[in-house]
């Protein structure tokens, strides 16, 4: 497979603020790639560099084999973009805005009117309303329809469903699956972890303008702790001493909970067997936990005065709550 997007060591500063600090990103052709990170991590900046709207200070970025800054217009004909905060022209209707964006992108190609109307229908959008009359969610739909009605081979989606209701979220996921089936590449920046878990083949997590982890979800899970909840015939003891086991908590009735590193799962389960397993529930780490693993220290320092919550303990607690 060839890379649709490859970024290495990207830097971008705004005045004294460092938005990107050596970011790396690789997106394979035909995959849906999740782009995760807290607010201000540099996700939108990265996407805008890819769009040639911002000029990187240093580092290499290639998209579809071209330079995003120099070949911007040429690249734009092959991609579609949905910004996270869609602003429309107050005097133009949603339908007009969709046509405008699609035709300007097309570079002469005819707009697929059937596809456009079908998407308007599926997203339950009224195309005759003026831009000023739309709510945030409806403005977002206009941008989504304009992007997906095109036959672009690459979709850059920057928190595309912020403001959409859960029903529309389902429609959006269907449409992305269709795009993937049609062989399109998608870079999806999102805060909605369930969305990313469902849609994305691979994920990159960034923080403070730097990539902290990248890979498939199963790869990431392997690197992270699984939560085990078990009921045993005899009280399970000595689990604390096992390598890679954390946060052991024994409850009444022989129930035990603990978190175990992916590499030591086998040993921990073997040890449990010795006490006679009655029931066993294992929670793979959720994306939230993956995220928290990278941002946990930040959160912890923010909540340093929450004295009783030891850093690891609070993580375990969150996992169980799910």
């Amino acid at each position: 497979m060839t890379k649709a997007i490859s970024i290495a060591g990207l830097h971008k500063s705004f005045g004294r603020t460092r938005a990107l600090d050596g970011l790396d990103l690789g997106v394979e052709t035909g995959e849906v790639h999740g782009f995760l990170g807290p607010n201000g991590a540099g996700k939108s900046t990265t996407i805008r560099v890819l769009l040639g709207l911002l000029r990187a200070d240093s580092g290499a970025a290639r998209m579809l084999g071209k330079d995003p800054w120099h070949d911007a217009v040429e690249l734009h004909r092959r991609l579609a973009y949905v910004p996270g905060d869609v602003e429309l022209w107050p005097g133009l209707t949603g339908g007009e805005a969709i046509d405008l964006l699609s035709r300007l992108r097309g570079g002469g190609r005819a707009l697929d009117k059937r596809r456009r109307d079908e998407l308007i229908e599926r997203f339950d959008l009224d195309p005759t309303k003026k831009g000023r009359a739309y709510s945030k969610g409806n403005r977002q739909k206009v941008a989504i329809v304009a992007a997906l009605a095109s036959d672009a081979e690459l979709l850059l989606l920057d928190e595309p469903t912020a403001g959409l209701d859960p029903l529309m979220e389902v429609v959006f996921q269907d449409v992305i699956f269709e795009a993937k089936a049609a062989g399109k590449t998608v870079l999806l920046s999102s805060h909605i972890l369930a969305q990313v878990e469902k849609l994305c083949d691979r994920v990159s997590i960034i923080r403070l303008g730097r990539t902290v982890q990248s890979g498939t979800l199963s790869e990431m899970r392997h690197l992270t702790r699984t939560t085990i909840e078990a009921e045993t015939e005899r009280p399970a003891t000595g689990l604390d001493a096992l390598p890679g086991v954390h946060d052991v908590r024994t409850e009444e009735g022989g129930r035990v909970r603990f978190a175990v590193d992916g590499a030591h799962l086998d040993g921990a389960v073997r040890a449990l067997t010795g006490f006679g397993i009655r029931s066993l529930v294992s929670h793979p780490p959720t994306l939230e936990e993956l995220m928290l693993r990278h941002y946990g220290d930040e959160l912890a320092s923010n909540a340093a005065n929450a004295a009783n919550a030891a850093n690891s303990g609070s993580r375990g607690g969150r996992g169980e709550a799910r």
Partner: protein
Amino acid sequence: MTTAPGTGTSHHSPSSTRTPTRTRALAGVGALVRFGLRRDRVRLPVWILALFAGTLATAGNYRTLYADPEDRASIATTMNSPAGLAMTGPRHYLDDYTFGAMLGHQMLGFTAVLVGLMSVLTVTRHTRAEEETGRAELVRSTAVGRHAHLAAALIVAALANLALALLLALGLSGLGVGSVDTGGSLLYGFAHAAVGLVFAGTAAVTVQITAHARGASGMALAVIGAAYVLRAAGDAGGDGGDALSWLSPIGWAQRTYAYVDDRVWPLLLCLALAVLTAAAGFALSTRRDVGAGLRAARLGNAAASGALSRPLGFALRLHRGMLLGFGAGLLLMGAMYGSILGDAEDMLKNIEQIQEAIEEIGGATVAESFASIVMIVISVVAAVYAVMAALRPRSEETAGRAEPLLATGLSRARWAGSHLAVATAGGTALLLAAGIGFGASGAASTGDGALFGKLTVAALAYAPALWVTSGLTLALFGWFPRAVAAAWIVPVYAFVVGYLGQLLQFPDWMNNLSPFGHIPRLPAAEFDWTPPVLLTLLAAGLVWLGLAGFRRRDLETK
């Protein structure tokens, strides 16, 4: 408002049932006034000090320029023409042309326009602009009454006007010029405030009508323009024929005859109109929703037309409203000036002395020399459009609306270029509209058919100066996007030098700094190809520079 039935009409209802309703509607106004003053802590003092310093400097200038009584008598004779009166004020000031009378005659009408502008922008900024951005909604969700925003905006504008009035009164009476006495200075200062209040009230109405701050201030500015044109047309008619001036608040202020007769009562007309318009604003505001205008939003086309999907067609669509508004305004303005052209000639034919004076200035006929002065005003109004239109890419950029377009197959140069094309072609079309209006009605009022062509060409001759203005705006946009508002200097400077420069006799080099100063003063002067060609080349260079800058900088995103 939730006034109980009957409480509004019953004069005898105890105050306890009325007061709560009123205080509820105005709740939070004190905090909003303080907030408004805090937000405008730089803006308003700059306005006030600039107007104050400008007036004081002019008064000082008079002393050096017209030291001798003969000088003053001679300038009074020059002023005593329709052109001179249209530019300044009513003829009555000329009877005894002291320094004070000169100030009231030449400066009052001019600064009143700027005071009006300050008031309109202040009111719009604190009302409609707040609603448009959604900030008002956040504020209104707290314990703030429904009339508090408008009331606070009007109070802030009133305080600014009051400060200016007091400053002018103090500063002018402290100058120690004989005819500029304390009583006259007080009246002179408060004449400004009274006009400012009228236009603050006007803005209170226009912000209710449209849902957009830009449209609301545009409408109010059109009212200021109309008030100025009415007084110009009226005053040009001389002593007996100034009925039109009595329709204009600026005309009222000038008819206080500060430093001459010191009449206070015309200001009462202003105050009455200010109260009336403000009350209308409050009343209209209860008939609409927060964030909406008085006109309900209409549905539009579900699909874009072919023209709309091309960059130029799209830019034209965005500029359409403003272009049509300016076009209608300039056509009317031209027609209005044209209609007094005939009177101007008749009136002056009888006065041989003035005829000679004007021929000395270089005009073929009285009408033509008057027309060449009107052209300055017309070209400055068109330049205001040229700047506003060329600023559009910047406002699209900061609003986040450029981003999705520039993520399509549309290049930056084509996007900015299409806006610039509309700005330059639109500005030229505006000159044409004004020239046609002026020419047609001028030809009719003088009976000289040749004037139609002459005046149209005279207006169009200013097109290269407009292109330079738009080009400069684009160059700023490309290289110093945050300082793009500096482009306003061009029309303001052109107005001050082209208009006031004639009165105050500025040195030539000041005139030469303005692109408008290089345009041959048609129809009075001969046409010369060199300046327009050079200006066109300069404009092309600025456009090239601007596009080059825009291509290499970051797009500003939200």
